[in-house]
């Protein structure tokens, strides 16, 4: 935030004042609290990560062969470092995810601004529809866009041929991957930035305008700098999530022989025999890259104040665009058409059409080719319903347990002076860097030997999901928590409230949109998560992501699409329900931004 903006918004942090967080707590309690959090994170994050590192430093399965010091070597890293194909995959990952992130930021930010800060018509509907890509598993997104944009058989190219345009789309390419990454991860940026824009006091912008700043200058020097943490958090999260995605590069990059790190890692685990130790070494490289990015993010944000929610009540300001509001409406409709309507149409065609060979446009409308056969076959399989029920249960457990843990961590690291909070923050960030395909086997290695009946239950899946997505959830929550001015808590303390009382009566209600958004995000991510499910599900705990992969690997795109539609509808209904529940004190971030 530059000096001008800082002087304009007039909000200062209040650290150092009497009654600051933690002052009323006995120091030993603070140490105990930090110890409890570190113990939980040690079990969820450090232990599996250590198993992963052990895997990367040896050539054995630590559970089967055990580990001795003599086994430890840097052999896997030397092999990986000396393999030019790893460098090619790394470079491709950087280009695809970097390009995708830039596109996601451009779209997500613009979309958030249109929905939150303008009087564009139908914006609530636009906001809801714009979140739909979040419900679509990446594998399905890739398949949908392959159906649309394949150079040989893509539906868009069939239409172009029909109307006599010689140019063809080719999504089996690096630009194709960047495009699909960008549009599918724009909602991440949108979620962060829309929440921040909504929580921002409009008097800050009004002050800028009264001082003579133009709307563009106000946006550039006040609005966007104030929501910089949200933009950077959304950007970082999008980038690292893209780095770990397999489905999109597998469907769009592989046919063009463009390997990225995840497809390379997947191949290492799928080859016969599997090369998990080498995959672990590649994953460690990915961790280092992500670690550097997180460090860079913290350097950028260090020493700046982004407090935007103070004690004064306000309503988000909607900019009156006049007739231009129809232009923003038009752009939003084009975005929705590209991101939601076209791929959904492709999935609908795939789900209802007997076979996906489409000779020409007239054959696309041959109704004899359509029916319910894929849905009938899908529900004939008892595992389909079992997987749906299990996924809902595990999603709920993950959202509740993960939400509580993330709030505890987020509050501790952003609003208290608890000891070791920097270490807690760093440990929390670790899982974001590890691809699910690799961390899945690390969870198996780490937790299979635990006494008791945890292995083979839904709880072990939920624990893995909580661990895997704790960085996403904490980041989503921290953004909301960072925006709440400390004077609100101080007021509660002055009125005699204790620490917990203040959290429940002041912080939690104010951060409620962020909490609901974080738990909803956790629920969605848990439902979609494949990598860690693959090794932890048992015969009684089949989940939807594994079942979906089974259908895809069975080569039946029709059932895959049908199951994806069922999954999307279920998630849509559940999220709509969640948002209904969260209405009242605060509007749901996911529903309306």
């Amino acid at each position: 935030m530059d000096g001008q903006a800082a002087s304009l918004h007039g909000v200062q942090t209040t650290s150092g004042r009497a009654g600051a967080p933690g002052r009323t707590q006995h120091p030993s309690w603070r140490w105990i609290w930090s110890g409890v959090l570190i113990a939980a994170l040690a079990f969820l994050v450090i232990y599996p990560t250590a198993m992963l590192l052990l895997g990367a430093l040896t050539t054995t399965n630590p559970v089967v062969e055990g580990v001795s010091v003599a086994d430890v070597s840097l052999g896997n890293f030397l092999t990986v470092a000396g393999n030019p194909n790893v460098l090619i995959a790394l470079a491709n990952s950087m280009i695809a995810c970097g390009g995708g992130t830039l596109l996601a930021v451009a779209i997500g930010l613009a979309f958030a601004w249109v929905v939150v800060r303008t009087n564009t018509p139908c914006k609530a509907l636009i906001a809801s529809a714009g979140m739909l890509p979040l419900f679509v598993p990446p594998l399905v997104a890739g398949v949908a866009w392959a159906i649309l944009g394949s150079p040989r058989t893509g539906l868009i190219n069939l239409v172009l041929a029909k109307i006599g345009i010689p140019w063809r789309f080719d999504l089996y390419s690096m630009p194709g991957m960047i495009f699909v990454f960008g549009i599918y991860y724009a909602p991440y940026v949108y979620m962060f930035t829309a929440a921040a824009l909504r929580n921002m006091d409009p008097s800050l912008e009004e002050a800028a305008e009264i001082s003579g700043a133009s709307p563009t200058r106000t946006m550039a020097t006040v609005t966007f700098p104030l929501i910089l943490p949200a933009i950077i958090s959304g950007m970082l999260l999008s980038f690292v999530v893209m780095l770990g995605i397999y489905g999109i590069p597998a469907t769009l990059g592989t046919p063009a022989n463009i390997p990225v790190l995840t497809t390379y890692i997947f191949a290492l685990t799928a080859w016969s025999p599997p090369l998990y130790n080498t995959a672990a070494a590649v994953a460690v490289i990915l961790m280092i890259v992500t670690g550097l990015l997180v460090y860079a993010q913290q350097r950028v944000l260090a020493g700046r104040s982004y407090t935007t929610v103070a004690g004064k009540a306000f309503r988000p300001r909607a900019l009156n665009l006049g007739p231009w509001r129809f232009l923003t409406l038009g752009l939003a409709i084009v975005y929705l058409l590209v991101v939601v309507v076209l791929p959904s149409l492709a999935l609908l065609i795939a789900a209802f059409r007997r076979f996906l060979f489409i000779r020409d446009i007239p054959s696309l409308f041959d109704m004899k080719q359509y029916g319910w056969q894929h849905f009938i076959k899908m529900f004939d399989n008892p595992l389909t319903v079992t997987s749906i029920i299990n996924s809902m249960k595990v999603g709920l457990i993950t959202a509740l347990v993960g939400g509580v843990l993330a709030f505890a961590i987020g509050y501790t690291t952003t609003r208290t002076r608890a000891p070791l909070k920097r270490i807690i923050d760093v440990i929390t960030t670790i899982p974001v860097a590890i691809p699910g395909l690799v961390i899945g086997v690390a969870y198996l290695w780490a937790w299979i030997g635990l006494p008791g009946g945890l292995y083979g239950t839904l709880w072990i899946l939920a624990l893995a999901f909580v661990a895997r997505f704790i960085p996403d959830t904490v980041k989503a929550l921290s953004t909301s928590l960072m925006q709440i001015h400390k004077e609100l808590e101080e007021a509660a303390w002055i009125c005699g409230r204790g620490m917990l009382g203040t959290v429940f009566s002041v912080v939690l209600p104010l951060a409620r949109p962020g909490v609901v958004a974080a738990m909803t995000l956790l629920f969605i991510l848990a439902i979609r998560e494949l990598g860690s499910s693959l090794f932890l599900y048992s015969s009684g705990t089949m989940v939807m992501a594994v079942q979906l992969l089974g259908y895809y690997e069975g080569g039946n795109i029709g059932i895959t699409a049908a199951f994806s539609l069922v999954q999307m509808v279920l998630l849509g209904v559940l999220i709509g329900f969640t948002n209904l529940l969260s209405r009242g004190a605060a509007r749901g971030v996911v529903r309306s931004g």
Partner: protein
Amino acid sequence: MSLLSRRATLASLGAIASAPLLVRWNPAKAAPAKFEPKPELVEAAKKDGEMVLYTAAFPEVMQDTISTFNKRFPFVRVRMVRASGGQLITRVQSEAAAGKLEADVLDHSDRGQTKNIEDLFAEYAPPNAADYMPETLVSPKLWPTITASWAIAWNPEVVKNPPKSWMDLTKQEYGDGQIGQVIAPSGGTTWTRVMFERQVLGEDYWAKQAATKPKLYPSGAPLSDAVVRGEVGIAPLLLNIVYPKMKAGAPIQAIYAPEGIPINPYGSGIPKSAKHPNAARLWMDWNLSEEGQADSILAQGNMTSLKTPPVNPPLYDPKTEKLWSPNFEQYRTLHDAWLADWNKTYGYRQ
């Protein structure tokens, strides 16, 4: 297991290290014999009530097999865990080491991998053990419940002059990405096919075929889908991926090539730790019986490792076509070096 069948099995296993199998089958039987398990096994399986199947086969295929099994034996609930070959082996090894192996039966397409974990399996042989081709067996504990076979598939809407032999796949008229290929390191079935190509079709076959610039796919299932959609016109594929689509009327056809049919017998067995051993034995006995193998052939388009097929497999002409199964010793020893050669020849980045 009877003394006779055990002797027959051991005698059969003595032939494993011999040359690769290249045979014509005996003529198929008029009808498969009905599977009649011993009443005491049925009663014991009823008491078990359920079993857990770990498999690397396609889940839809296995679900169909489970449905057919349950029509005969509805009192055994089969719960399935499915994973790709490498992931399944990792899971089995880790669970076994922790004393938590859940599987009552393990099905795996890579016999080399199951052979490596042979110690985990209990002694088992089906009642008709002596009827199996010795060259397809790698251990007295492991049996080919599934025998997958390679065919040449194409989309008739896209390809008007389809290839008729493996050698046709080296012709430039099918160049420029018309052919799709599964990468050789993908698993035991593909490794079998690439061995066949080099050993039977010639040392230079890969180079000639790679010169047509085929599109490479990570596994057979997405490739079969790509053929149906017309993304690629032609592909060598396992018939058990193609045949159900053909029966359903999809735009895909297939032939067995005259130079030989590479077959990949699975290595399936019952772990020592099985909690439902009788249900597992009933499952294995039924699968390996003529009745079970006939279902595998007719419903899924598989071959069989029985010396005399219980029914004539679809597309197979016993007068002209020969089965090919690799020498198991070579299957294990040539693996790494030949895959490296294949990757280099096809420009696959491993």
